[in-house]
């Protein structure tokens, strides 16, 4: 038995994947099936689920409402479509911004002296040692009307004898964007760094040898060869930004409601698990669609792992 296992590579693979497969089944597949079932149910008046097969929750999500002004039975209520669209654009904007900030930094680290790289990478990781929520709270302290940023600006204005009205920064879409970018920056820096660090120095030399100045070398050699890192980072950033509710909750308040907040409220405040489940599935489907088209075009950045 053991001897046969030793010779059978594919059986070894199956065996190694077994524990994970087991947990994935218990903790992912089964809950997912339950969510799907609940999403077709209805809310009972006391906040429980009535199991039926009804598409009401999905109809409500795409904006067809039964809660209408007097005289109408159905009407269009774009609230949920707006929330979905807001989540999508915010995730897109955050990802682009994160790439723009992470790339130069990753490039700088990858080209710095090998002895220093570890220190720099360490510094990138340090914020992750602090709890996610606490880091968002820190941004509240900074962005508040009485916060650090306004205090500094007020002090400068005072010195320059300018009249200063504290800026309203907290509870704006901008605050949520800043928070998202800050939270997920390391997840972009690391894969880009990894793919840049892998580029053999002789390739830069070859490009120079063939007549490319540093700028064209970057465009034609460095950038394309580091794309796997950008792709991997994009997946690592885009998906969580789509679903996170803490950042928008704390920094966006009631102003910036994302799909994550919607789901959370359905389960905790509105006590409508059926509608919450439908929202969750819509989020998942949307993320899957975006990721599908993205990876079909760019791959998963698997070269970064394979090469």
């Amino acid at each position, binding site marked *: 038995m053991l001897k046969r296992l030793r010779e059978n590579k594919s059986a070894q693979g199956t065996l190694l994947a077994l524990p994970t497969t087991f947990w994935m089944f218990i903790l992912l597949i089964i809950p997912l099936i339950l969510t799907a079932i609940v999403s077709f149910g209805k809310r009972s008046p006391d906040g429980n689920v009535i199991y039926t097969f009804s598409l009401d929750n999905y109809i409500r999500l795409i904006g067809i409402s039964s809660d209408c002004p007097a005289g109408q039975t159905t009407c269009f209520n774009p609230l949920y479509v707006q929330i979905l669209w807001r989540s999508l654009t915010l995730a897109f904007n955050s990802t682009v911004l994160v790439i723009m900030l992470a790339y130069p930094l990753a490039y700088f680290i990858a080209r710095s002296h090998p002895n220093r790289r570890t220190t720099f990478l360490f510094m990138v990781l340090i914020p992750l040692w602090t709890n996610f929520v606490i880091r968002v709270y820190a941004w509240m302290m900074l962005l508040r009307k009485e916060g650090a940023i306004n205090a500094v600006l007020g002090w400068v204005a005072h010195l320059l004898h300018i009249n200063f009205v504290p800026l309203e920064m907290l509870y704006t879409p901008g605050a949520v964007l800043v928070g998202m970018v800050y939270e997920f920056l390391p997840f972009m820096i690391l894969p880009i760094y990894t793919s840049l660090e892998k580029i*053999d120095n002789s390739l830069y*030399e070859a490009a120079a040898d063939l007549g490319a100045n540093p700028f064209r070398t970057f465009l034609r050699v460095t950038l394309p060869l580091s794309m796997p890192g950008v792709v991997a980072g994009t997946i690592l950033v885009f998906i969580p930004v789509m679903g996170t509710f803490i950042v928008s909750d704390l920094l966006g308040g009631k102003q910036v409601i994302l799909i994550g907040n919607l789901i959370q409220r359905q389960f905790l405040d509105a006590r409508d698990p059926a509608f919450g489940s439908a929202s969750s599935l819509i989020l998942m489907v949307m993320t899957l669609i975006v990721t599908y088209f993205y990876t079909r075009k760019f791959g998963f950045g698997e070269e970064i792992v394979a090469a």
Partner: protein
Amino acid sequence: MTSEFAVELRDVVKRFVTPEGNEIAAVDHVTMQIKNGEFFSMLGSSGCGKTTSLRMIAGFEWTTEGEVYIEGNPMGHTPPFQRKVNTVFQSYALFQHMTVFQNIAFGLEMEGAKEDEIKQRVGRALEMVQLTGMERRKPKQLSGGQQQRVAVARALVKTPDVLLLDEPLGALDLKLRKEMQLELKALQQQLGITFIYVTHDQEEALTMSDRIAVMSNGRVQQIGTPVEIYERPSNKFVADFIGESNFLDGQIKSLSKDEAQVFIPALNTELRGIPISQGLVKGEDVVVSIRPEKIRITEKNAKNDNFFKAKVTNTVYIGADTHVYTESQGVKIKVLEQNHISRLDTSSFYTVGQEVGLVLMPENTLVLKKV
């Protein structure tokens, strides 16, 4: 062509600080002049400074002291992309994200060549290295030998004045290496471009080169044609490094204009009429060097000049040659005999312990300074 020399290194020094904090001279006062259209090799064992020398010509490193001239112009800190030399890298350094065509076209695009011209020139370059039809492959889809050809084509398509090659065949197996040696040599002759070729393989250097610079410890030991380097090594290092040599310690007994008499204490023999080339003085301690294939084995009682008796200690038959190991008064001497005639007749072999006579032909014997 503004200068007689394609490339010239004048008293070039390159120092590095090692990670341990020591300063080493990777290239130590090197001077060499490489003529236009020449196949020039730098030959030496690993770590002797060949690659560093080549990289200073390409512009990847700058000299610590001295100057590199290309076509007579001092290079100073001219960056690589402004030098009219191209490099074939040891690791090939092909762009993995580009096809063969794109790799070769890259250098032309950087020159701003038009699309039609690029197509035409890439086509010709591919023909030259016999890779027509492979345009659309990625480097990973090629064999080592094919990748090597792409690297050559990518550099040659730029029609450089000088092509620099750093052990370009090092990663190939022996048979392919021999083929590529001849191909590269033919290509160089056909194009008339100056090749500067780095290798640690002496046979490769002897096969391909017009001239060779033998290097060791960052210094040039000798520059010369393959024949000069083999037949007239200028010091013991070169005599030992290129081919094989027997070395005998001796002392100059007397000296005429172009000949010397050398006494070999260990053999208690005097060697006469040995040609000398450099400034030696009477009484000087020297090393006599003689190649194994240039010693004649004779009867043990023959009457000859520069003759001494020896005992056969071992023989090794290797097909084309037989190696005969002998010993004379504690001095080991290796002789190489070509197997002109079939040795099926075992009586024609030397037997271990047999007494023979060895004759050193004066014209094939060298007197070298003791270093």
